[in-house]
């Protein structure tokens, strides 16, 4: 970087000073009467509003959450150790806001939008309040465009659409974040902007995730909002709302965005901590009474908005385009108990869930998605016709396989039909395995599943199925590159395409190169 010379520096400073408005205005002030546990009680501040930013000496900020008759309860967004009784606190007149815009892409920010990746300041022009009302019924449009996650098991059996909320739920260390990361990696060229919100996680984990994005070339398409485990609870509480505001920027301008909340369990813990310290009455599992509303209002903001809404929002600049914000919230369960408080809450809010099971994970089936209990309430509407037709039989085949699985011990004594069903199920289960950071395109997934459905795998040993798939895809990408690209671009399904596909696979099998 070139060295600035002294006159340039003073010129920059002078410009900044001229842009500033430091005229005196009437402000509301109050006195701190108690400080502790990140909560400050202030006497005075008669005109404080709910959720307003309060300024403390030293530039520390807080958020007014308890408006009582004789005092205001403020949660401190940052280090509260420097505050003491008797200091003055000031209303800012602004409800808590975060910066938004394209300038945030490729950056790692904290819950207030301040950069923490050491790459310099972010000169965002726009800000938005963190609490906003979700789009109304009239402004919405039906979800029928797909978000390709790149994972066979998800895109075939629980397809996700743009504007949908799909919960990823499972025990610890089971691959929940891995699904989120794979989803983001697959959005490299899809035109979907990604936001990854890390709540209450280890800083080392967050650093690893950023590194992964960088390695796979998707960091420039992603905003990362990090409120790590060492950040105060108020910042962890705000982070998902801040990320949502950043994602809504794209939604409201006719673009598509994907947001991953990792994870909402820790978000609920942070909110519980704040509520208990503010002396709000505890309810079930000591969570406050409005813990459902906390997540429902966050997830309702993930939606698909129609073109009229976008046109109105952009004052006619963007016409004829719908916008969407797709949410993939993550919830951690304890010992697979999805009937606990927070899991049931979030399951009832979202449009489906991807349920990951420890048994499947330990048996080597990764992603450990359970096809029986995982659901997407948008379903086939969010699949391109090609995928929809080809993956139609997968879920059924696996369901039938599960029913017969108990009989697999008597394999030699069974009738032909049952045995074939078992073997087919085993091969499909094996095919659903996929390595991390290896997303597949629509065409590749389609080819794989078509081969499985049409019986091309019956003569392949179960433990060789994945090798067969690798070889088949390599062949298709080399010899039939044009065909594959055509499928990826159009997504259509007709007899001609199916015939071409069948012929290609038969040709591959004839070569015997697997």
């Amino acid at each position: 970087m070139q060295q600035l010379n002294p006159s340039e520096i003073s010129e920059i400073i002078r410009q900044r000073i001229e842009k500033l408005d430091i005229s005196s205005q009437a402000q509301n002030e109050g006195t701190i009467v108690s400080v502790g546990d990140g909560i400050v009680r202030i006497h005075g501040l008669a005109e404080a509003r709910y959720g307003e930013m309060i300024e403390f000496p030293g530039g520390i900020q807080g958020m007014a959450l308890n408006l009582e008759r004789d005092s205001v309860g403020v949660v401190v967004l940052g280090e509260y150790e420097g505050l003491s009784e008797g200091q003055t606190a000031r209303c800012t007149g602004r409800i808590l806001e975060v910066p938004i815009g394209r300038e945030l892409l490729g950056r790692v920010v904290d819950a207030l939008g301040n950069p923490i990746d050491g790459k310099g300041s972010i000169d965002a022009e726009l800000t938005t309040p963190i609490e906003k009302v979700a789009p109304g019924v009239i402004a919405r449009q039906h979800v029928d465009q797909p978000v390709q996650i790149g994972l066979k098991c998800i895109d075939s059996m629980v397809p996700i659409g743009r504007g949908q909320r799909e919960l990823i739920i499972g025990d610890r260390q089971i691959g929940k974040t891995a699904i989120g990361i794979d989803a983001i990696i697959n959005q490299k060229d899809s035109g979907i902007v990604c936001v990854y919100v890390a709540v209450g996680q280890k800083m080392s984990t967050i650093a690893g995730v950023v590194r992964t994005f960088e390695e796979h070339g998707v960091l420039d398409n992603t905003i990362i909002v990090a409120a790590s485990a060492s950040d105060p609870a108020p910042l962890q509480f705000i982070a998902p709302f801040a990320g949502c505001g950043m994602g809504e920027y794209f939604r409201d301008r006719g673009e598509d965005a994907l947001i991953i909340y990792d994870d909402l369990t820790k978000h609920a813990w942070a909110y519980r901590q704040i509520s208990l310290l503010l002396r709000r009455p505890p309810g079930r599992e000591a969570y406050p009474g409005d813990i459902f509303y906390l997540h429902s209002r966050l997830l309702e903001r993930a939606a698909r908005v129609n073109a009229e809404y976008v046109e109105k929002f952009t004052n006619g600049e963007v016409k004829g385009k719908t916008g969407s914000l797709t949410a993939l919230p993550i919830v951690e369960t304890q010992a697979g108990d999805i009937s606990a408080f927070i899991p049931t809450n979030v399951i009832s809010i979202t449009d489906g869930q991807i349920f990951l099971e420890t048994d499947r994970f330990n048996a080597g089936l990764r992603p450990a998605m359970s096809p029986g209990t995982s659901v997407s309430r948008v379903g086939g509407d969010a699949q391109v016709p090609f995928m929809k037709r080809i993956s139609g039989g997968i879920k059924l085949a696996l369901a039938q396989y599960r029913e017969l699985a108990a009989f697999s011990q008597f394999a030699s004594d069974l009738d032909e039909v049952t045995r074939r069903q078992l073997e087919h199920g085993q091969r499909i289960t094996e095919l659903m395995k996929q390595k991390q950071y290896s997303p597949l395109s629509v065409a590749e997934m389609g080819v794989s599943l078509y081969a499985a459905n049409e019986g091309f795998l019956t003569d392949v040993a179960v433990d060789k199925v994945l090798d067969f798939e690798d070889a088949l895809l390599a062949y298709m990408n080399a010899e039939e590159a044009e065909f594959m690209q055509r499928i990826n671009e159009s997504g259509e399904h007709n007899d001609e395409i199916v015939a071409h596909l069948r012929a290609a696979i038969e040709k591959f099998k004839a070569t015997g190169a697997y």
Partner: protein
Amino acid sequence: MAELATLARPYANAVFGTAKSSGDGLDRWSRMLGLLAATVAEDAVRRVIESPAVSAEAKAFRLCELGGDELNERARNFVGLLAANHRLGLLPEIVRQFEALKDLEEEILDVEIVSAFDLDDSDVQGLKDRLTKRFQREVVITSDVDAALIGGVVIRAGDTVIDGSVRGRLDRLTEALKQS
């Protein structure tokens, strides 16, 4: 522990109501309450009030004795009531709230003006007129001088603060430049 203000409020409201309806007048009660609060603040008196060994009646009696002829019948009753409820320590807060209610009633606003240099009378009158217009109440000004402000004035009216001092502007400039 509940806020002192919350505990004192019912008493202040009751006293205010009595003062208005009884014909004693707000000023009279203001004086009596002021006297009681000042008495209670004295070390020796405070020790007696806080002592669990002395009975409520005794505390009330002592306090009324100290108040002397200044306190009328109703004021004595009030002291007895506070003593019986163990709320004598709230007197300073009760007085504060009573004065606030009185100001509201008489439409007076207490404004504190701190300036860097002495203000002359025309300046003070000018400020008074503008403030009266802004707050729609009669303004009573207390002024003070603080050289640390460098220039300009800081006006405090209740919770609202208008910081027009040079020091305030420099502070805001510092904060803004540090943030960007």
